[in-house]
C-alpha cells in the first residue's frame, strides 16, 4: 500500500501530505490531481497535486481539513500506509507561451497552482501571482511564488498583509495598468467564480480548476459531471481545467453540497470517537 512520507500542518486547517508513489511522481504534470483514501472504511477524495519529486518518488498535496475524510488524513504520520493513492489523474493544465499570466490562488489552491506557476515561468511567461488569504497567519509558500513571479500580490481582509479587498478586485486593478493574456485560478469555488466573473467583462481568458465530488476519478461514474463549455463534462477526465466563463457555477455549488447533511453526520461521529 502507498506509504505516507510526511503529513504536517502548513497553516491552521491547511495540511500538506507527501506520499511515496514513484510512478505517479514520474508522470505528474501541472494541474493534475490524485485520488486518495485514508483507511479501508474511508472515502475516495480528489486532491490537486501541489508538488512532486521524481527522484525521491514522492507526490505532495495540500488539503483543507474540512470533513471526516480530510480529518482522518490530517491524523496520518510518516510511515503510515493508505489503501488508495492513485494518479496523476485529469488532463494537465495547458502550459504555453501566453505572455502575461495572472495566477489567482487561495486556500489549498496556493499549493495546487504552484506546479503551474513554475511551469509557466519556465515556458517564458511573465507570471503575476495573487494570493488570497483571510489573515496573515494563513499565508504559505509565498517565498516559492516570489521566485517565479514578476510581481506577487496578496489580497486579504487582514489589514496587516493586504489592502482589505478580495482577490477579484485586485485583478481589475492589475488589468487597468497592464495587459493580461490569461488568468488561471485555483481555490475555493466561490473565489474561482468571483475571479471568472471579474475577468469576463474584461475579455481575459480565465482557466479554472473545478473541484466537484468524485469517486473513481477515471470517468467511470460521472459523479463529477458539471456544465462547462456548453455541455455536460466529467471534471475527472475532461478537466479539471475549464474555461471559467462557461461554467455553470450554481450547478457546481449545488452538486458539491450533495451530501452536506451526511458530511456533518460523518464528522460528528468521527469527533465523538476520536476527540477527548
Amino acid at each position: 500500500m502507498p506509504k505516507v512520507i510526511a503529513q504536517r500542518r502548513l497553516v491552521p486547517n491547511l495540511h500538506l501530505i507527501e506520499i511515496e508513489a514513484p510512478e505517479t511522481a514520474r508522470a505528474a504534470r501541472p494541474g493534475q490531481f490524485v485520488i486518495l483514501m485514508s483507511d479501508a472504511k474511508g472515502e475516495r477524495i480528489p486532491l490537486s497535486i501541489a508538488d512532486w519529486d521524481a527522484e525521491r518518488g514522492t507526490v505532495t498535496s495540500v488539503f483543507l481539513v474540512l470533513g471526516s475524510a480530510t480529518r482522518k488524513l490530517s491524523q496520518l504520520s510518516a510511515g503510515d500506509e493508505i489503501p488508495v493513492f492513485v494518479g496523476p489523474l485529469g488532463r494537465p493544465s495547458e502550459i504555453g507561451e501566453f505572455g502575461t499570466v495572472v495566477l489567482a490562488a487561495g486556500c489549498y489552491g496556493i499549493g495546487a497552482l504552484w506546479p503551474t506557476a513554475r511551469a509557466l515561468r519556465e515556458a517564458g511567461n511573465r507570471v503575476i501571482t495573487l494570493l488570497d488569504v483571510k489573515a496573515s497567519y494563513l499565508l504559505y509558500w509565498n517565498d516559492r511564488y516570489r521566485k517565479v513571479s514578476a510581481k506577487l500580490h496578496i489580497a486579504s481582509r487582514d489589514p496587516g498583509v493586504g489592502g482589505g479587498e478580495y482577490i477579484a478586485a485586485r485583478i481589475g486593478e492589475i488589468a487597468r495598468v497592464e495587459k493580461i493574456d490569461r488568468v488561471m485560478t485555483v481555490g475555493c469555488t466561490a473565489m474561482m467564480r468571483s475571479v471568472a466573473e471579474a475577468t469576463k467583462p474584461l475579455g481575459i481568458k480565465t482557466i479554472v480548476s473545478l473541484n466537484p465530488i468524485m469517486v473513481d476519478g477515471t470517468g467511470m461514474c460521472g459523479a463529477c459531471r458539471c456544465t462547462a463549455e456548453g455541455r455536460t463534462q466529467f471534471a475527472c477526465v475532461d478537466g479539471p481545467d475549464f474555461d471559467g466563463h462557461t461554467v455553470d457555477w450554481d450547478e457546481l455549488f449545488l452538486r458539491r453540497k450533495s451530501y452536506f447533511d451526511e458530511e456533518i453526520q460523518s464528522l460528528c461521529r468521527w469527533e465523538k470517537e476520536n476527540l477527548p
Partner: protein
Amino acid sequence: MADKPIELSPELQKRLREEFVKEWRQALRKDPPARERTKILRQPMPQRGAGERSRDFREVNCGLSAEAALAEARRCLDCAKPGCVSGCPVSIDIPSFIKLIEKGEFIAAAFKIKETNALPAICGRVCPQESQCEAVCNLKKAAGIPVAIGNLERFAADYERNAGEVALPALPPPTGRRVAIIGAGPAGLTAAGELAKKGHAVTVFEALHEPGGVLIYGIPEFRLPKAILKAEVEYLKRLGVEIRYNFVVGKTATMDDLRAAGYEAFFIGTGAGLPNFMKIPGENLVGVYSANEYLTRVNLMRAYNFPEYDTPVFRAKNAAVIGGGNVAMDGVRTARRLGAERAMIIYRRSRHEMPAREEEVGHAEEEGIEFHFLTVPIRYDGDETGRLKSMTCLRMELGEPDASGRRRPVPVPGSEFTTPIDLAVVAIGQSPNPLLLATMPGLKVGKWGTIEVDPATMASSLPGVYAGGDITRGGATVILAMGDARTAAASIDAYLKS
C-alpha cells in the same frame, strides 16, 4: 432468447469423447436409465424470503444442498452429443463435471470446471445460463426443463471452497516472460489465471483499490458476495498472479512505459466504464446518479454501511431506475434495500424486450419493485436547493422493429405525466472507457469506441496487444468477457512462444 451455439473445435470434441467413453461414465449412464432421469423434477434454488432479504444486502440465493445437487445431477442424460458445451462461452466440459457430482466427487467436479474456467463460483451466480448452456441442453428438448447447470456449477465451486484450501493445478516451470493485464475485471482476472497456468509472470494493473472490476463495483453483495470474489482472487494469487492496485495505465504509466519495464505482451480488459446519460433537462440535479456511481458507492465503497463507512449515498423514499437490463435490476433492488418505499423500473419498451435475466426480474417482482413499461423520462425537476423532486415521463407504444429486431418504442402524443421521486438512477448502458485508448496511437478503434480485434485470436492492431470483454464488445456479459480472455490468453501464450 438463446445465444448462438459455439462450434466445438476438433480437439474439444476429442476431449469430450474421451471422457464420455470412460468406464465409470458408461456405468453411471445406465443406472438410472434416461427415461427415469427425465422424470426427476428440477431442484429449486433455495432462497431467502422476499420480505427479509429486501431489507439487507446478504445473498438472495442460498445454494443447493448436497442432496439436491445429487438429484439435479441425476437429471443430466450425459448425452453423446451434449448441447450444453456448445452454449458455454468458455467451453466447460459440462457433462463431465455434472457426472462427477452425481458420483459424489464434488471436489473433482470443481476441478473439472476449473480446467477451463478459473472463476466458477462467480459464473455459477451471474452467468445467464438460460440463454447459454441451459438453452441448448438436450433435456430441455426432451422434457421441457433443462438441467440447472448454473446451480450445479455454483454448488461444486462453493463445496470446494468451503472444504478448505483449494488445490492448485500442477504449474509448469516459469517461462520468465512477463505479461501485463490492464484491468482486474472478469476478463483481466481470467486472462491472468490462464497465463499464470502457462508459467508466465503476470501482473494485473487495476485502477481501483480492490479487484473484480464490475464484479466488485457493479454487481451487488446480494447477488455476488464479496467474500466469494475475494476467494477466487486469492486462488489466482496462489497461481502466482500479481495485482497492482491504484494504477491507471495511460495515466500512472503508459503502455510504452510498461514495455520499457520488460512486459512483452498485453491484455486490455478495461471494460465499458463510461456511463451513458439521456441528455435530458435536469439530469445534473442532485439525486440523479449514473448506475455506475450509485452501485459503486454502495458496492465498492459500502455506502449501505454509512456512517460506519465514510462514503454516503442517498436513501430515497421514491426511487426510479431508468432501464431494463441487469444493471437496472441491481440498481432498483439496491434502492429497495436502502429503504425506498416505491422502487420503480422505468423502461421504454415492454416486458418482452427487457434484456434483464428472468431470474433477476422475478426476484425484483417478489421484492415489491414496480415496473413501468413503455415509459420514458423526458425531464427531471428539482426543488429550490437543486435536489431532485419529480420526473416527467412520456408513455410509449411499440412500432416497427428496429435494427436489434425489437419493436421500436414511439411516444404517445399527449401522454406526459409527472411523478414525485427523490432518486433517479440512469441505467441505460455504458460505453467503453476511452481513457487508456486515447494514449495509444495506432490502436484501431471502432465506431462505438471499442478496440477492434480479430475474434479468432483477440489480437488488436498493435503487435503483442490483445483485448477482450466489454472494451471490445461495448457492453455484454461477464462470461463472454471470460471467453474472450481465454482466447486471448491462448494467443498470448502462442505469441510469447513464437
